[in-house]
């Protein structure tokens, strides 16, 4: 990927020298996100959808729920399938074709975040153990890449899942029966992902924009849920010192509540309580 992405030396050295003095090229604080904008449920044919913009980075996530076979090691659980596409609309560096390693990494980081926290109650999505279960397909579309599509994808994913409605069903002697009413997907947690970047010699920032992402050699993302549990980490570019590892985890734990608040507000989780 890196060979396709270019940032001028001038911008790069400006970004790094400003960071060393504690300021950012777009005037943000080091630990501030760009403005986050959320639209839920804009794809009516999907069971659930959400579009999240962080600055001008834009990601659309859609959920379709179908019926399929369970995995043989968990025959009594529904299936979660996460796929991510870096569509060529989003950047001159993205090309048509099957997902490349960056897209697969994105999908797998989001997948781990949701799976390890048991965000979806997959047990309640079983129809006939070992034979038929509901399959939740979560498809992530990166539409505009101005840096940090991982955090935007994580937000869009959890919001799309919270937006998902399925036909109320009952199982009568192995027979699946639908009712007219739609009910929400059983979503138990609200994990979010925080990406941090830093120059070799300088402070950490969150939510790097594209110029920052290209200028800063070291990048890591960390997922945290509403209970403050760390549920996924992926070192992306570069390296971190041992002390920096503890620092990024602590910054992520402090930053997560702000993102989780957005998720709760936009999904109406707070309104009911």
């Amino acid at each position, binding site marked *: 990927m890196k060979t396709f992405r270019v940032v001028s030396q001038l911008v790069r050295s400006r970004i790094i020298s400003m960071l060393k003095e504690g300021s950012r090229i777009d005037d943000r604080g080091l630990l501030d996100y760009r403005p986050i904008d959320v639209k839920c449920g804009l794809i009516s044919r999907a069971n659930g959808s959400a579009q999240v913009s962080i600055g001008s980075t834009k990601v659309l996530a859609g959920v379709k729920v179908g019926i399929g076979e369970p995995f043989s090691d968990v025959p009594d659980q529904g299936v979660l399938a996460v796929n991510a596409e870096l569509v060529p609309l989003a950047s001159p560096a993205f090309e048509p074709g099957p997902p490349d390693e960056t897209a697969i990494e994105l999908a797998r980081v989001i997948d781990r975040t949701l799976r390890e926290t048991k965000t979806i109650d997959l047990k309640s999505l079983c129809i006939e153990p070992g034979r038929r279960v509901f399959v939740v397909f979560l498809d992530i579309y990166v539409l505009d890449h101005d840096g940090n599509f991982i955090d935007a994808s994580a937000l869009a994913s959890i919001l799309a899942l919270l937006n998902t409605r399925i036909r109320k069903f009952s199982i009568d002697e192995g027979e699946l029966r639908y009712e007219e009413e739609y009910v929400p997907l059983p979503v138990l947690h609200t994990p979010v992902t925080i990406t941090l970047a830093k120059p070799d010699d300088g402070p950490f920032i969150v939510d790097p924009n594209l110029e920052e992402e290209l200028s800063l050699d070291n990048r890591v993302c960390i997922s945290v849920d509403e209970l403050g549990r760390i549920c996924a980490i992926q070192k992306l570019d570069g390296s971190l010192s041992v002390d*920096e590892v503890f620092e990024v985890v*602590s910054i992520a734990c402090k930053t997560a509540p702000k993102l989780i608040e957005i998720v709760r507000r936009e999904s109406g989780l707070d309104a009911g309580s």
Partner: protein
Amino acid sequence: MSSEFVRPDGRLPDQLRPIKMAVGVLDRADGSAYVEQGNTKVIVAVYGPRELHPRHKASPEAAVVRCRYHMAPFSTRERKSPNPSRREVELSKVIKDALSQTIFLERFPRTSIDVFIEVLEADGGTRCASINACSLALANAGIPIRDLISAVAVGKYNGHIILDLNDEEDEAAEADMPVAIMPSFNKVVLLQLNGVLTEEEFKQAFDLAVKGCMEINRIQRETLRSRYLSIKGEENEDV
């Protein structure tokens, strides 16, 4: 560690599995290595620096590392399809990213350094065993590196933080966290967490991983030293 907890295979929480390492195990490759950690067996070959095709993928500034992590169909309990899975694509990428940190890439512009990893038997910790073997194979190929990368996984199993998970532990684990470091620079070049940890557990696990990496690094160095001491010995015999 003072804990009384004993693991399914009888190890203590902070105990590595038995390790075997060898370098120069393949004749045609520029560098190669074989690593066993418990039942996990990995073989690695390195080719390069060599001309990169297609040429437009080359960088005028530095060598490009290409890496393929691949599991043999017979390496797992159920036969694994030889086609690359999404997991293998991701692991190839994170291993490549880690190796790129240690190689002096800028010394070999317009070339590629190709690293081929075959997991022959998978019993947990295959990506870490792969990285350990890759470092040795790079050294064996004579490719200049800053440090020997060492890797090991830590995890949380039955509420205990443990080192170097095998497959049985990994499957039941609450969390699994592979870590790779360049010990001489105190740099973390691979860090993934798959599972759920509190901040406190994370710190404990990460410290344990660093300790484990140090021990593996010592064995890697010993492996290289004995290899080249023995070559020197052979030459002397010829004279």
